[in-house]
């Protein structure tokens, strides 16, 4: 049996989840966590000047490492200051965990000092917002938070910890613990085959890479597929960087603001768009009737409820971007001898 302060267990979980840097501002209601960070060590902490800053730092940290970023604040206005950062991370699918201190449980219904119901406030801009009520759940709620933040379409989680809960001692043995397994979203093979058939039948197809290609580390698979089938590639604003813009297959960005003239022109000449990890944002599509035209659309997204949300595609595929692209490439290679795509672009 290993006993330790609940917040020491939390710091052990953070470290095991790959957190070596945290961004935050201490306050009276979060000091047990700071005591644990000092005692356990191993996490470099930067004291921010505003909690929104902490959330955006955790955001940039996550976009760079691919791991879950951590921002820390105390109760009351610290949490409300984090809302813009949570919204940003939710909107752009960035996995971060925001940790807030909270007033003592006994003060929560007494209009206690800096005691605001941050969990209710944060719910619309998080994948999960939760208050720890039982100290023994602390390491497991944190494990679950890291799983939720990363699984499927990534996003932010907020964990609120009342001061009295944070001060308790619990059983936790970090030497026999590990991150929870993250469910992998593989494509359904008949839909991969249908996507390939449509792609090969098209005269002037385009691959459209969204932010999901970056999140799933699929750039290499995207390049291989584009080169193997000889299909031009566009990116969305969130997908920018997923494909080398010096490549002869790069055909720009479509949109009503962030776009190239050649991007919009080649999009308008295309007859099929295979969108991977993109959500058809309104600054990309502009007027939907023009955007759709007579083109066929295949929409691949890891989040099932995204498909059909902006318009009905001709084919929807629920999948992680990288797993889809590699399945499509493998399937294409099995059908050796079939004509390569893009006849219309070379005519």
């Amino acid at each position: 049996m290993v006993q330790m302060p609940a917040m020491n267990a939390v710091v052990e979980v953070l470290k095991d989840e790959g957190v070596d840097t945290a961004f935050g501002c201490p306050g009276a209601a979060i000091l047990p966590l700071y005591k644990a960070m000092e005692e356990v060590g191993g996490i470099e902490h930067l004291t921010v000047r505003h909690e929104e800053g902490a959330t955006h730092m955790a955001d940039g940290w996550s976009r760079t490492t691919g791991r879950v970023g951590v921002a820390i604040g105390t109760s009351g206005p610290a949490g409300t200051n984090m809302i813009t950062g949570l919204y940003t991370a939710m909107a752009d699918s960035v996995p971060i965990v925001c940790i807030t201190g909270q007033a003592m449980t006994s003060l929560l219904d007494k209009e206690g000092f800096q005691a605001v119901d941050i969990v209710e406030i944060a719910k619309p801009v998080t994948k999960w917002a939760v208050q720890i009520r039982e100290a023994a759940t602390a390491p497991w709620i944190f494990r679950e938070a890291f799983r939720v933040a990363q699984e499927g379409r990534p996003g932010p989680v907020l964990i609120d910890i009342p001061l009295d809960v944070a001060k308790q001692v619990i059983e936790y043995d970090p030497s026999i613990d590990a991150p929870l397994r993250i469910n992998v979203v593989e494509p359904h093979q008949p839909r991969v085959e249908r996507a390939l058939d449509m792609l090969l039948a098209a005269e002037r197809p385009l691959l459209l890479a969204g932010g999901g290609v970056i999140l799933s580390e699929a750039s290499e698979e995207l390049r291989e597929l584009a080169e193997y089938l000889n299909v031009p590639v566009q990116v969305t604003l969130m997908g920018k960087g997923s494909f080398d813009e010096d490549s002869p297959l790069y055909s720009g960005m479509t949109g009503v603001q962030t776009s190239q003239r050649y991007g919009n022109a080649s999009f308008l000449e295309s007859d099929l768009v295979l969108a991977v990890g993109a959500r058809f944002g309104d600054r990309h599509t502009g007027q939907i009737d023009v955007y759709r035209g007579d083109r066929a659309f295949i929409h691949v997204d890891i989040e099932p409820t995204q498909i059909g949300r902006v318009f009905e595609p001709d084919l929807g595929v629920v999948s992680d971007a990288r797993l889809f692209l590699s399945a499509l490439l493998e399937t294409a290679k099995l059908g050796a001898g079939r004509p390569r795509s893009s006849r219309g672009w070379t005519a």
Partner: protein
Amino acid sequence: MDRVNELRRTLTRREDFDTVPIKAPRVYKEINEVFDADTYFVTAIGLYQIWGGQHQKAYKPRHYQICGQAGPLGWEIPAAIGVKKALKNTEPDAEVVGIVGDYGFQYMVEELAVAAQYDVPYVIIMINNEYLGLIRQASLPYEMNYQVDIHYDEFGTDNVKIMEAYGCSGRRVADPNEIRDALEWARKEAKATSRPVLVEIMIEREANTPHGPAIDAVKEFEPLPGA
């Protein structure tokens, strides 16, 4: 890919402007030439996001980071700190650049103190039109230029002095031929001081970005190449 390459070769936009005041596409031409493919960029929301999306080049995943949907002003100063700290073990010498607007700059400007205190170097390139430029542009159909002008005194807020107040440094540029030197100076200065360094670029105040309601109706505001 003949057709794709033909479109790419012919349907471009000008970046070679050498007029004073500076036109924003020229700034991105200089950025593309000065920084290499390994540089990490962060950029947020405003006219400069649109110019960036039109003119800046990207080559590698995670190296062009943008807050796409929410558009929170001021995201870059803290985001750049997060990016730089994220690379502390893997690419400690990687260059990080934040491209900012003059208005959004002040939303999270206090985080410069964090970068200064913890020795987090990066380059901040400010595209300054002393306007809420995107909102001035959005006001055009209303035939309105109301409460979007933030100019006062000579340059409005003295952003170089703001940098200096936080223990950082900066330089203001008004001539397109000075941009490259200023960017090179900022790269060296960031490395030498281990702190953020600002290059503030004063651009044409009422320039508009190409934009439109539909992808076949994007309006251009500058002469096209060859025109």
